[in-house]
């Protein structure tokens, strides 16, 4: 009994001199895996057009019913997306979303991709609804923009985001 008590003390004593495994979160952000499923992004094509064609397949596939897509017809002179229609409204309720990635699988144009952003906190329940302008990648950055965290690590975005039509 005495020996095992000493062994316990010895173990903790050894641990005291080791570097703690804790990541100092707000100062140091732990890199996520390449296929990590975080916040969604709506991607664009290389020419700047939106990939989303407003087909609502993501909304149909969503098991948590978190996605709302309201499609509208494209203006032939100035199309937003290459298809007939585009998403006039695209909203995801982050309180409902379970980050399963079915929307990503269902999307025929690889428009919606679960990216690596995981800081999704808000003070207000209303702020849980992420609208299209929050989800859409900026126009000037175009398609294939590597998320900053991956850029730091010299990695590529998730495979679906790399596919072009």
């Amino acid at each position, binding site marked *: *009994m*005495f020996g095992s*008590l000493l062994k*316990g*003390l010895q*173990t*903790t*004593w050894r*641990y*005291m001199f*080791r570097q*703690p*495994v*804790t990541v*100092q979160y707000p100062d140091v952000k732990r890199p996520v895996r390449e296929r990590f499923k975080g916040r969604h992004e709506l991607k664009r094509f290389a020419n700047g057009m939106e990939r989303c064609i407003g087909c609502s397949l993501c909304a149909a596939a969503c098991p948590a019913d978190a996605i709302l897509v309201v499609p509208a017809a494209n203006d032939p002179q100035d199309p937003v997306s290459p298809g007939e229609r585009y998403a006039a409204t695209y909203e995801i309720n982050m309180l409902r979303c379970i980050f399963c990635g079915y929307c990503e699988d269902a999307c025929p144009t690889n428009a919606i991709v679960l990216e690596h952003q995981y800081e999704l906190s808000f003070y207000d329940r209303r702020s849980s609804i992420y609208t299209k302008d929050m989800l859409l990648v900026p126009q000037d950055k175009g398609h294939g923009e590597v998320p900053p965290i991956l850029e730091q690590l010299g990695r590529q975005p998730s495979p679906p985001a790399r596919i072009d039509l």
Partner: protein
Amino acid sequence: MELIILITQCLIITLAVTTGFAYLTLFERRLLARLQHRVGPNRAGPFGLLQPIADAVKLFFKEDIVPTMADKRVYLLAPALAVIPALIIWAVIPLGCWNIAGGYEACFDGGASGPLSNVLQIADINVGVLYLLAVTSIGVYGLTLAGWASNSKYSMLGGIRSSAQLISYELALGLAVLGAVMSAGTLSTTEIVVGQNVLWGIVPQFLGFVIFMISATAEVARAPFDLVEAEQELTSGYNTEYGSMKFALFFMAEYIKLIAVSAIAVMFYFGGWRFPGLETLGSGVTDLFGPTVGALVVGIVSLLAFLGKVALFLFVSVWVRASWPRVRYDQLMSLGWKWLLPLALINIFMTAVVTVLVPNQILQGVILLVLGIIVIAVALRLSQTPRITSQVKLAKTTEQMRP
């Protein structure tokens, strides 16, 4: 003048002890975290040094709830009853020796060479040890009343457990202290420290020290004897129904008692504020700058030595908390009654016989140390349960012998 000094002493010791409590919580959390491969609270201020203040502010502003079915007066009185004994323990503990009435020499011979007026000890009463034992026992009232007055089953069970545990270990604690008192030949705390000029108390009272440390840990309900507040069984024991500052008072009582018990252990067994070379330092400084400065320097150095020793004990306490699992209730009781109490009686017997038969103090100490180690070894051997490996071997051999 005397009164002013007394009031100042009381104020300073109360503030120092409560601050000590606050930073002990931080020390414990940081050290425990390191022992468990974590970092601990480090966001509030540099190294988390403002964390105790943040905690205090949070507790002050929490809602003050009194359960409907609680016995309101007792419920409100209990935290005070818990914290007051923890604070007044400090009255008789010599934290150092700064003699303002004369030179430093009086500290080392207990006032034989001149008037002794030690400002680092509030009350130098001739039954100091008795006072310590009495006050530590009163502390159990706070916990028991809190458990009863909350009118909740968890609190009740916690209160019963704490009173049973404290009363059981009180005996072993008292007997262990009695050994130290016998070898010092006095009940005065000042003279106990003075009497450790040749050997520190741990040498003649090694067995007593071991018993004292175990029962003192149980007495302040620290791990591995913290089943008074076993979260898994009792949510948090007697203080389950307490919130905001009332909870903080219980917490404070517990930690101040921990510091006090460490201080008492240092006083009995580790020479109190004594420190090798302190007397030489005192005489050197007195020769250079006069008796007042000499006494002041001895006072400061002895205080630092005392605090250092106490810090060592607190470190061990946290270390043990991080390492050992909690004992079961029946194990607690059998350890207290079947092992510690008889061992403490053996210790008293040994001390008495050796003190009478052997005239030389150093020889006495060595003989008692050897006897103590032998007794502990025998007790460990007797308490050993059959090892599992031998049982496995036995099972294997019987398996082979089967046709």
